[in-house]
Every structure is written in C-alpha cells, then in structure tokens.
C-alpha cells in the first residue's frame, strides 16, 4: 500500500523534541572557536543627517576589537532596487533601525556597552512616516527619485478610464489599509562566519535560500561562488523574511575577513522588530461596478505599496495587481500600482507576499458590493465565480489559472459550518438586541505558487547498502519537506522510510538550488526529486536486466519490497537495490536533475470565520474558522494540515491584532514583543478543516503549494466577519487590525452618522 497520502510523523522531530534543533546560536563548530561577537549600532531616528561619528570611546572599551562605519566598508553598492541601501548608513539615516556601525567584541556581554559608546551625532530631518506623507511629497526621502515614487506600474496613478463604470447600476468603492506587520519568526536573524587560511568562507546563516545567499555574498565580496560555502542549519521560521542573505549577513562575512577572525551575530528581538523587513504595508482602493442581480462588470484596483526606506521588493504590488480578479470571471479589470518610499523599515516578502493584499481587497470589496445590493455575500460570489468548465482560465490581468472548483469549495465550507443556522442565530440575536453580536465572514481565494525563479534541483544516490540519500535545493525550515520527500521516494523506489535520508541547506552538498519561498518546495523540489528517481529507475531497470539476462522492458520493480524481477515471474531471481548499486560500481547508481518545466499553479479555497463582538467594549472573539484549502493531492496530511494551521493563525493575527505602527515622527511604537501584539494560543480557536483535492497538470506530482494559502484566505474571512457583526449597527467598513478601540470607534462613528 502506498505511504503517500497517509499521516506520517515527521522524521525531523526526533532531535527537535529531545535535544532541540541546532540553530545558528547553537553552533559549537571548531571553525567558530574564538569567534568575535558582533552588534550593529542602529539609527534611533527615522530621518537625519549624520554630522559626526566618534568611535574612540568604543574602541577603548574592554574587549572591543573593531568598530566599522560606512567609510571603512569597501564593498560595491548593494544590487537591489532603484535606491540601494548603503551597507552602513552613509551621511543620512532613513529609518529607525538602519545600521550605522558594526562593532566586534571578544565576549557577548561586552556588545551592549560597546555599542552605546559609539557616539553618533544626528541632525534631524522631517520624517515621511506614512503613504500619505510620501505621496504628499513635502519631504523627499531620496533625491534621485521622482518625488517619493520608486515605481509606477500599469495604469497608476492617472491612467484609469474615467468612464469605466458608466452604465453600471451599482458602484462601490473603498480604500482598504492592508497594515504593516512584522514577520517575527521565533528565531530572529543570525549568522556566523569563518574564513580558512586559504581564503575560503563558510557562513552559517538562518536563511531560506543558501544557494541564493551564496550568490549575493560572493558577488559582494568579489570572490568566486566556489570560495563560499553557506550552511543553513536548523532555521527557526522564515515566512519570507529570511529569503537570501540580508545586508547584515554580507557585512558580517566582510567584517570577519577584515578582522581576521570568525565572527558571530545574533539579532535581539527588539532589534528584529525594526531591522528585519516588514510585510504587507499597502493601501488599496477597490472599486466594483455591476448590476443589482449580483453580476460584477468592472473592477478597479489602485495599489499603493509602502516600500519603506529602501525598496527591496517592488514585485509585491505587481503580484497584487496580477491577482486582483481573485476567483471571479470579471469581464473587465483595471489595475495600477505605485511603490513609494517612506522613512520606515524596508518592506519585503511575508507569507503570501502580494497575494494576500489582492485577496483582501477583492474579498472585502465583494462584501461591500453584496451589502449595497442587499444580497447574501455567499450568493454574490456564486454569481461571479469562474466555472469549472472555464479552466484553464486566462484573467484580464494576465494570469492563467490551471484548475479550480471555486463554487464547490465555498459550498462545502458553508455546509460544514452550518451557514444557514448561523445566519438564523445572527438574526435572532439582532432582533433580541443582544450586546454580543455574531458575525460571519466569507473569503474565497485563489493564489499563485511555484512562480518563476527558475526551477529546482534534485539528486538521488543509491548506496551499496541499499540505502538512499536525496539532495534537494529546497531549504525547508519547519515545513516537514524531508518527510514528504522521503515518503515520495519510499513509494517510488520501494525503499522503507528509515533507509532514506534527505539532505538540504549546505551549498557544498547541494551546490545548485533556489530554496524555499512562494510555497514552491513540494511542487518544484518534490518534482525534481521525483524526476531524479525516475532516471535512477530507468538505469536500474537496465542494470537489473543485465544481471538476470532479460530485456529491460521485461523487468519490473516490486515496490512492496524494493526488489527487481522479471515481469510475471514472482518466483524468479530477485535483485535488491544494494545489489544494483554494487553492480553499478564506480559510476554509482545516482541521478541529478534540474526541474524547471513547472509553471505556476493556482491553489484555491474558501474560508468562513465566525466572530463574536461585544458591541459595548468593542472586543472581538474569533469563535470558529472553517477552512477549505485545495492544493491538489496531499502527500502527508499531517504536514499539510500543519501548514494550513500556521497560515490560519498568522492570517487571523493580521485581521485581529497585529500591526507594526509608527508615530508621525517615524518612531516605531511596537518595537518590542511586549508592544507588538504577536498572537497567542488564547486568541485563536480550534481550526475546522474541510478537504478537497483538485490536481494540476503542471507538474508530475499534480500538487500545488500550501505554505501560504491559508494565510491568504483567513485574513479577509476574519476581517469580513467583524464588519458583518457590526453591519446592522450601520458599520460598512473598518480597517485591520480589528482591535477593541477600532471597533468601538467604528460603532461610535456609525451611531453619529445614523
């Protein structure tokens, strides 16, 4: 019986639950003996001119080995973006948390004291702490940009058709703030670097993409990629914010070379909250025009991305535009986006990266449209869904969806939740004038996974003892990919799980790869390993045929016990993998491939959130979250559900609680974990998962990505539920996070208006 599709406990867990993982801070490698400790001195101001830096007191402090500032760093400019960030601030600081100096000390306890002794004089400049301030353009963050706009795409800002909505019976419009949040992986950033006497560098780095990190480190340091080894040890969460090598990691490698000794760096949490990239940070205006029967005719999405001080990820608003139509067959969609700079922490990928913002806009918009025409939000969606017979479906924004069953997904979720009964209860509470209001929120979503970024590597070695090692260019950090790949191989090769090892994360072992982001790992990394195993199987058939003196076509693998035989001769001679590997001799039984024929896939689903809102205090309780997330056939339901749970938790967190905020002067006001509302166990319900599997034809496994999907659906579902709870009191919209204060204010406003 196939192991694929069964609940398999993870091979990763044995060590994690007994000895703990080995994260960067836990490394006790010999190469790191005597390592110096590093700390970054960071800007306390959002925007200021640096008028002087005095490092003499710090240099004289006990244990201080070096203090580096911008003028010491002889690296080429960072490659990313229209206005590259200097490695260390050069003349001007542009956000609280921007690195200004790097200090190395003998011992960890000396770091904080030494950092404090670096004396930086600042001449404050006006902050640009919001999208509104950026667009107003009174203060310009970078002289080389046109105002504060770093990128304008599509029809933004002035190209929209003035007459687009002519003839629509109903038009609704809403500006929706998709607030800035902190990715906050529980392990903050860290790295450790050591150079050999021959000039080869090893960096242990908490990253999602060791091979990409190697490329950036080598390029910046001006050395060959084969002179750099990057090792991703255990990584304590990434969520998109640990893609590649951050500037700090590159600088650390440089400093290690300059100082002539190994160096290690561990970011503090408070540092992490302002110095690691943030996510989301968009302001989106959605306009929907259509008929009173629920048919939507025109949709417009105007995206403004707050890119932070130095744009690193201007693909985010582009992805938002691409996914603007969501799951609907809208005849006309027009979009535009602008990426603006502000004096805040740079914004980059965070679980979903551009797609959650699109879904939030259209799903909030569909609810507004439904409210306007007095139709149930589920019904409005049904009227407009892309039908199953329309796939592959090309959207007006240029995406080609592979497969989907959008209406079926929503219907299943509503049935599982008992939607009609919930609506009845809501009506009963309303007519009884109950203080605790019930709200139901629907989101139907489609997202894009395994997008371009060129494929993935996979390699299989069959050893002479019959065991198997697989190498993947994916770089999992909690997703359970090693287990999933071992399951696939066990099935394919007929080798038991405990004879299969999956290796990843070390560029000396896996020189080529792209890594883990964009929910791509099973889809591309899994397909690569599958293809490598196919090649091994083909060779093995030939070798087995030689051994039993039969034609390769007459040979088959008995997957129950991993033995090769002549077809139809169960009693005949059996050849084991060990024997084959032996026979293969020096040109070992192995195969390596680069899988790149995969085009993106489009997972989809529907979520229903049920909230209770105390209309006196504004307090929101998320009571239920019923979620269907369809990503095609499931390899390991345990890991699949885990990815969905995590996504539901993070998505709900954005709707309910989390926001990274700044005051007018650009000071972050949520810069510690005591202030940032990181969601806890008490604020979430048990999740209710509904299953459905619609395969794709775009990869040999038929799978789509699941890492981000549930985040994308849950945020608007929970958000819509809160608005729905208040709709009978005249509230039409409020922005996330739906904190008690926000809810209370929305109610007060509605009362005043009525």
């Amino acid at each position, binding site marked *: 019986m196939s192991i694929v599709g069964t609940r398999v*406990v*993870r091979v*990763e*867990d*044995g060590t*994690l*639950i*007994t*000895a*703990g*993982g*080995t*994260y960067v*801070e*836990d490394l*006790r490698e010999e190469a790191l003996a005597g390592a110096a400790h590093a700390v970054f001195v960071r800007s306390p101001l959002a925007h200021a001119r640096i008028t002087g830096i005095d490092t003499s007191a710090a240099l004289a402090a006990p244990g201080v080995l070096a203090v580096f500032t911008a003028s010491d760093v002889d690296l080429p400019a960072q490659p990313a973006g229209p206005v590259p960030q200097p490695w260390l601030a050069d003349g001007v600081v542009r956000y609280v948390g921007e690195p200004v100096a790097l200090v190395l000390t003998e011992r*960890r*306890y000396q770091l904080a004291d030494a950092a404090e002794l670096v004396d930086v004089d600042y001449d404050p400049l006006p902050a640009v702490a919001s999208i509104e301030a950026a667009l107003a353009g009174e203060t310009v963050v970078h002289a080389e940009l046109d105002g504060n706009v770093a990128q304008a795409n599509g029809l933004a800002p002035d190209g929209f058709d003035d007459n687009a909505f002519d003839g629509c019976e109903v038009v609704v419009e809403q500006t929706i703030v998709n607030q800035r949040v902190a990715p*906050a*992986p*529980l*392990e*903050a950033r860290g790295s450790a670097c050591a150079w050999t006497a021959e000039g080869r560098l090893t960096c242990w780095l908490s990253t999602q993409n060791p091979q990409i990190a190697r490329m950036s480190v080598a390029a910046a340091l001006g050395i060959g990629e084969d002179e750099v080894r990057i090792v991703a040890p*255990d*990584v*304590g*969460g990434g*969520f998109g914010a640990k893609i590649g090598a951050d500037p700090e990691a590159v600088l650390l490698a440089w400093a290690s070379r300059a100082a002539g000794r190994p160096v290690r760096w561990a970011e*503090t*949490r*408070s540092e992490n909250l302002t110095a690691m990239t943030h996510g989301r940070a968009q302001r989106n205006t959605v306009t929907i025009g259509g008929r009173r029967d629920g048919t939507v005719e025109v949709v417009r999405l105007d995206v403004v991305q707050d890119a932070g001080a130095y744009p690193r990820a201007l693909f985010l608003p582009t992805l938002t535009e691409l996914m603007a139509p969501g799951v609907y067959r809208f005849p006309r969609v027009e979009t535009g986006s602008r990426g603006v700079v502000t004096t805040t922490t740079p914004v980059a990928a965070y679980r979903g990266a551009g797609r959650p913002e699109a879904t939030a806009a259209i799903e909030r918009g569909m609810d507004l449209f439904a409210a306007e025409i007095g139709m149930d939000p589920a019904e409005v969606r049904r009227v407009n869904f892309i039908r199953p017979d329309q796939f592959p479906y090309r959207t007006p924004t240029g995406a080609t969806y592979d497969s989907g069953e959008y209406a079926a997904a929503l219907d299943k979720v509503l049935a599982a939740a008992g939607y009609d009964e919930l609506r009845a209860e809501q009506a009963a509470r309303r007519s009884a004038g109950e203080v605790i209001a019930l709200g139901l929120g629907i989101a139907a979503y489609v997202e894009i996974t395994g997008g371009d970024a060129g494929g993935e590597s996979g390699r299989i070695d069959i050893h002479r003892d019959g065991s198997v090692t697989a190498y993947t260019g994916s770089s999992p*950090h*909690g*997703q*359970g990919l090693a287990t999933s790949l071992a399951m696939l191989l066990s099935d394919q090769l007929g080798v038991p799980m405990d004879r299969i090892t999956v290796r990843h994360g070390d560029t000396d072992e896996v020189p080529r790869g792209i890594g883990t982001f964009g929910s791509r790992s099973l889809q591309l990394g899994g397909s690569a390993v599958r293809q490598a195993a196919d090649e091994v199987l083909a060779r093995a058939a030939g070798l087995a045929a030689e051994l039993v003196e039969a034609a390769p076509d007459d040979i088959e693998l008995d997957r129950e016990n991993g033995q090769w035989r002549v077809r139809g001769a169960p009693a005949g001679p059996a050849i084991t993998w060990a024997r084959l590997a032996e026979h293969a001799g020096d040109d070992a039984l192995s195969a390596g491939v680069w899988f790149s024929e995969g085009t993106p896939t489009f997972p989809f689903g529907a979520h229903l959130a049920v909230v209770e809102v105390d209309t006196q205090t504004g307090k929101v309780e998320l009571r239920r979250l019923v979620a269907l997330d369809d990503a095609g056939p499931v390899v390991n339901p*345990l*890991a699949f*559900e*885990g990815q969905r*749970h*995590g*996504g*539901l*938790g*993070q998505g709900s967190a954005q709707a309910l609680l989390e926001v990274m905020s700044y005051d007018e002067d650009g000071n972050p006001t949520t810069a*510690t*974990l*005591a202030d940032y509302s*990181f969601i*806890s*166990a*008490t604020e*979430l319900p*048990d*999740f*209710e998962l509904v299953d459905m599997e619609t395969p794709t034809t775009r990869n040999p496994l038929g799978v789509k990505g699941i890492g981000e999907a549930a985040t994308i659906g849950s945020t608007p579902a929970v958000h819509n539920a809160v608005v729905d709870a208040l709709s009978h009191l005249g509230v039409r919209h409020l922005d996330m996070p739906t904190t008690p204060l926000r809810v209370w204010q929305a109610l007060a406003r509605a009362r005043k208006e009525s």
Partner: protein
Amino acid sequence: MKVTIEVNGSEVSDEVEDRTLLVHFIRDNAGLTATNVGCDTTSCGACTVLLDGESVKSCTILAAQADGHAVTTLEGLSGEGELHPVQRAFRDQHGLQCGFCTPGMIMASVSLLAHNPKPTREEVRHGLEGNLCRCTGYHNIVNAVVDASGQEVGR
C-alpha cells in the same frame, strides 16, 4: 562570582559575571543549547525550563538566583531511549514545525500537566498563553497536550 546549579541531575559549577542570565548559564556553562532565546522582554517563553520543578522563563532570572537549585531542561526530560509523554505527543500530533518554540513549549506543557493533569482545550490555551509559536497556529500544540494527558484528541 561562583554559581553552582544542578542541571538535569548533574552539578554545574562555574565562575560567571554577576549579570549572567540563567538561560546563558544553561547554554554556555552547562553547554545545553535546546533552551532558546526568542525575545528580550519576557514575552515568548522559548526559554522556559523547570526550576525545582516549576516552570520559569530562564531569561528573567539570574544564574546567581538559581545558585544551589535544580534546573530541568528539554535535554533532561527523558531517559535513555524513552520519550517523555509530552515529547511523544508533540511528535505524534505534529505539535512543532521549525522547533524553535518547542523546548520551551514542551517544558511549559510538562508544568501545566503537573498542575492540571486533565486540562480542557481552553485550559491548555490559557496555560500556554506565555509561550509564543509562529508556525503552528497552536492547534496541534493543544492537541499534543491533550494527548499527553491521556485524553482523547477530539480533532
């Protein structure tokens, strides 16, 4: 100053700076790295260990305050080849992903069950409020604790 702490049954004695935190004593002096540091404001619980059997956040106490006391960390939870029921349940219920919160989460769960051997799901959620996890959405962590308590896991 000299500090002596019994860590997982063995005495560890070392000369440390006065301001050394217990978590750093465990990691650097006792050489046990399962216990993690996830924050600097006592918010995350990644550093949770048992001090004389009670769960504490080891980033909030000085090594000096634990002088003469006994500490149990994740590494000391199970015997040779045997998993503690909480460890087994975390694995069986997929109660961990990246594993960074896990040592603290497991120690907090052990303590929770010592005080409340048959908790409801709601009680588990409240009992673990001081332990943050970014990966699991907590669902399977609750399952794991319920499972470890010998109760049926509903979902």
